């Protein structure tokens, strides 16, 4: 019985080997393979699904370290991008500022401008009366050069070093400059005033007693003197009053430039000196 079983099984095995070999030579090799593979396939599929489940489960824990590293790298990238964003914002502001100065340069093609940043400020009642800029003699800056922004007049260079210069602003009580009102042609001098400094304003003095000065008039530099060219806007007239002692008219000027927040200015290094048509 056992020999019969052995012989039958050997025959089956031999037949499988021979038939598959012959079928393979004849090009029908798939017949028996498909039967064997088909029986085992469901079990292989199940095993594969189980394996995938386990590998996914294991990968979750194996990837924790990788995820932590990725978080760290993303955090560093975020910091870097944030710094880049700040830089981009600064560049955008500088770009806007330079564009405004370009417009100013196109308007005054005789002006030679030198951009400078404010590095230090002397405050008086919350308004800048003296600025320290990052440009000095090495950049061709000299004492007496006007300083402006796109809004208007800032002041004049009063001291120079090799790599810095100091600017006395028009709010400083030691500062005086020739100015006029283009609408009426009235001329006087703008000066810093102790009484107006706490409001960030200055005074236009020495106008004629019957001068035509009105609230809202624009005040510009007159070009008289050796410091400022004609036409740099200084501010607008806020109020007009008569000085009984000197028999002149005075006007309080609100400057165009914001002296509580200055960080970029332009130094006027060269210009054609004119007094303007509106000057008396």
């Amino acid at each position, binding site marked *: 019985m056992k020999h019969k079983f052995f012989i039958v099984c050997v025959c089956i095995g031999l037949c499988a*080997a021979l038939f598959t070999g012959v079928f393979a030579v004849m090009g029908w090799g798939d017949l028996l393979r498909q039967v064997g593979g088909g029986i085992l396939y469901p079990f292989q599929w199940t095993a594969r699904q189980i394996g995938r489940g386990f590998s996914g489960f294991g990968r979750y824990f194996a990837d924790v370290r990788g995820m932590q590293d990725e978080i760290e790298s993303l955090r560093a990238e975020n910091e870097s991008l944030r710094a880049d964003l700040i830089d981009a914002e600064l560049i955008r502001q500088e770009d806007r500022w330079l564009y405004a100065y370009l417009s100013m340069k196109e308007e005054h093609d005789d002006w030679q401008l030198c951009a400078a940043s404010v590095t230090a400020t002397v405050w008086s009642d919350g308004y800048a009366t003296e600025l320290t800029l990052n440009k000095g003699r090495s950049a061709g800056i000299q004492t007496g050069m006007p300083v402006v922004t796109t809004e208007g007049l800032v002041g004049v260079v009063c001291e120079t070093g090799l790599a810095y210069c100091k600017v006395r602003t028009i709010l400083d009580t030691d500062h005086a400059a020739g100015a006029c009102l283009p609408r009426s042609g009235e001329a006087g001098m703008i000066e810093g005033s102790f009484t107006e400094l706490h409001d960030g304003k200055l005074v236009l003095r020495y106008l004629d007693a019957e001068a035509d000065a009105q609230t809202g008039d624009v005040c510009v530099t007159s070009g008289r003197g050796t410091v400022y060219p004609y036409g740099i806007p200084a501010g607008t007239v806020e109020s007009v009053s008569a000085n009984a002692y000197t028999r002149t008219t005075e006007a309080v000027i609100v400057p165009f430039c914001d002296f509580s927040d200055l960080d970029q200015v332009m130094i006027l290094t060269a210009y054609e000196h004119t007094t303007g048509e509106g000057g008396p």
Partner: protein
Amino acid sequence: MTNKTPASRVNKTSYAHGRISSARSRERLSLLLWGSLTLLFLLAAETVWLDDVKLFGASFGSPGLGLCFAMALGYTVDREVGGAAGLIGGFLLDGALGESMMLRPLLYFLLGWFCGVLGGRLLAHNLPSFIVFSAVGAVTDLCRAVVCVIFASGSLPPFSWVWHSQAPCVLLTVAGAVPVYGLTVWLVKKIVKT
């Protein structure tokens, strides 16, 4: 005085034989069912999970778990069970792997059969002796792989292929024989009571 067996005793003996025979049939059936499932599980594991075992970056191929199981059944139960498991397992494995010539059914049958024949005669019935049998079986399987290559390509495979690709499989099969033997012994103890 004639020695006659009482009718009641004859009945009892035949009744006992009948019960034992019936229990053995149930055991055979149960062994067939669980053995087949275990064989299919091992073949699926061999072809899916352990199809390319890598240790320290080196590929060790796949352990012959189906072969080990057939030999273990022959070793622990009897040669017929081992031979049948080898025949079926070899057929399924060749089908799953797409071999052009099915030599595994014959080879696995012979290995399962002779493991049952020689087990306990040449060596003691324990794990170390089974490992020796499994090593012989793995080397025989290596020879089958060489024959298959000769049949497919018509020339001898290079020695480097045998050494680097097939020899590690022998080691892996011997390593895999240990858990498969333990599984088979546990399964047989659970099923075979008589």
